[in-house]
């Protein structure tokens, strides 16, 4: 079976006074129906821009470079005209972003906004659209859904707003749901509710979910596979259990050592020294090398993704000698 989503060599360029920079620089992955892939990275890793590029929503003056390929089912998104692409956004691909307050229109009720999304992709009467909106609010676990239909975003809590966003994203029965930091703005107890909801919807509808997050903790319970991004590239990808059991890239290992936990020894944390360099200062060899405790001569050449474990790839020369 061919995967639902295939991304090959995605590059996003921004012109600067001293030539173009590429905050997303050669990203490739696939995602099957009914699965969740988490893309994890810190600020500046390119994870959110990758999501925007899939939707062809790269902010100006950025461009998706020729040679990049994004395929969803039978459509090559990178070749579609803008009109066809608009039908894909909110149609075959649903989107949920971090801040539901700025994504929702403050002067329309929750019901209006969901109904509008329903009618944008299906020919139905206003009455049918409203019924559908109510069914969607029920599906996303909105408390007292009939009443919420007629409420405005400011009358809803952060968690309820995110449920409205998810209902809008589901309106056109998407095959792929892109969720960019969907719970970052929420309190932990509400965050747990929303993550559980997304997972239940994925299982029920057989959607593929692309979960963009900075939080490895969010990934641990929810994703089938993980791709770790650093400086515009995927530096490690693996099934979730494998990545957590045996992180292969020194950056991934450094992330784990940086996270305080609720269990085990309460020792000093081992932070990654330094900061993520800006895109115009990325090293020509391994981009992590200046912060890496394991760098060696070979690090001056750019490493490819190398087999590092079962289903696991790491962009690190340390794995060059290992049998696959």
């Amino acid at each position, binding site marked *: 079976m061919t995967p639902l989503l295939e991304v090959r060599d995605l590059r996003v360029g921004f012109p600067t006074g001293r030539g173009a920079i590429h905050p997303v620089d050669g990203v490739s992955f696939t995602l099957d129906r009914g699965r969740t892939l988490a893309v994890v990275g810190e600020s500046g890793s390119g994870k959110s821009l990758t999501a925007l590029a899939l939707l062809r929503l790269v902010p100006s003056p950025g461009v998706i470079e020729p040679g990049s390929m994004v395929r969803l089912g039978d459509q090559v998104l990178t070749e579609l005209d803008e009109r066809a692409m608009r039908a894909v956004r909110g149609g075959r691909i649903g989107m949920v972003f971090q801040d539901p307050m700025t994504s929702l229109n403050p002067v329309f009720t929750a019901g209006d906004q969901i109904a509008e999304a329903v009618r944008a992709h299906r020919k139905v009467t206003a009455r049918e659209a409203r019924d559908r909106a109510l069914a969607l609010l029920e599906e996303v676990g909105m408390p007292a859904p009939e009443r919420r239909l007629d409420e405005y975003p400011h009358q809803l809590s952060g968690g309820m707003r995110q449920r409205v966003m998810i209902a809008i994203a589901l309106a056109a029965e998407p095959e792929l749901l892109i969720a960019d930091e969907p719970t970052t703005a929420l309190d932990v*107890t509400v965050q747990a509710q929303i993550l*559980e909801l997304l997972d239940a919807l994925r299982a029920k509808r057989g959607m593929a979910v692309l979960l963009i997050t900075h939080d490895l903790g969010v990934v641990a319970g929810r994703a089938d596979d993980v791709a770790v991004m650093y400086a515009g590239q995927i530096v490690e990808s693996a099934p979730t259990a494998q990545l957590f059991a045996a992180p292969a890239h020194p950056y991934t290992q450094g992330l784990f050592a940086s*996270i*305080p936990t609720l*269990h085990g020894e309460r020792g000093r*944390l081992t932070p990654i020294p330094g900061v993520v360099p800006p895109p115009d200062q990325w090293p020509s060899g391994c981009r992590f090398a200046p912060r890496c405790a394991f760098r060696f001569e070979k690090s001056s050449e750019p490493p490819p993704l190398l087999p590092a474990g079962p289903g696991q790839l790491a962009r690190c020369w340390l794995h060059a000698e290992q049998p696959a």
Partner: protein
Amino acid sequence: MTPPLLLVKDLVKHYRAGGFLSAAAPPVRAVDGVSFEIARGETLGLVGESGCGKSSVGRTILRLQEPTSGSAALDGTEIFSLQSEGLRTMRRHMQMIFQDPYGSLNPRMKVGDAIAEGIRIHRLARGAAVGERVAALLAEVGLDAGYATRYPHEFSGGQRQRIGIARALAVEPALIICDEPVSALDVSVQAQVLNLLGDLQRQRGFAYLFIAHDLAVVRQIAQRIAVMYLGRIVETGPVDAVLADPRHPYTVALRSAVPEADPARHGGRIVLAGDPPSPAAPPPGCPFHPRCFHPSRNERCRTERPELRPVGMQMAACHYAEITPLAVEGASSRVAGIA
């Protein structure tokens, strides 16, 4: 027994909604009777979700906001009755580090001047000695002494937070109130700043009131913890005891909701239903009762408010704190409550 460095008793902070039409509206009970103490050199972690009142506690103690009632004493000096001169002296001994390293530094003030401000106000050094102290402080927080002549916008979030720490250290306080000091930072930088905060405390011996929403971060830095819900402390005690054996169901749920970077620990999750109620209309009885899942919960919880009382190593405000709220590591449980 040595008296505590900070002693807070029955602190109350209510906010009134603005405007003449809202005169009859009930006040928002942001802080509704909070008491705790902090010893010299100790760290108390104050934890809770947004709207629980934890930030109001910190801001009121610093007199950035006026309390509605209650008392707070730093080293025996009553804070809430201080006037201008006394307040200034008090602020030398008590400093704050904010969440947003972008908003808390004056963009038009050079980093060195921002750090030197407190030194000058409190006349801790003069002339060339001021510059030397600033340079030493920058070095102490891991920054280049040459940064003193630069402006805040030239720095990353982590560097700005270090500048904020240097500014707080400049007046050699006995207590530093940190309000979400690492929550705006990326994890790799967060770890650097947490280590720095710990190192500085070990070297200088000051105390922290560490306000945060992240239990794991608090566990990393605090010896004691106080969990707030709807303006009240619902559980407090040694951090290891509270996290290993929480006695209040809200602490159990909060701990269970922390997304841990370990797939093996995602089995027995308690997902609380609904949102916290509004602090303008807190439920009668136990404020947690509408979302509670404790096996013993009953009519009493709806009518009678539980007070903090000793249970084992800690204190908990639950009528049934002796009964373990739920087997946290057990089978997955979905908990219903009033939404």
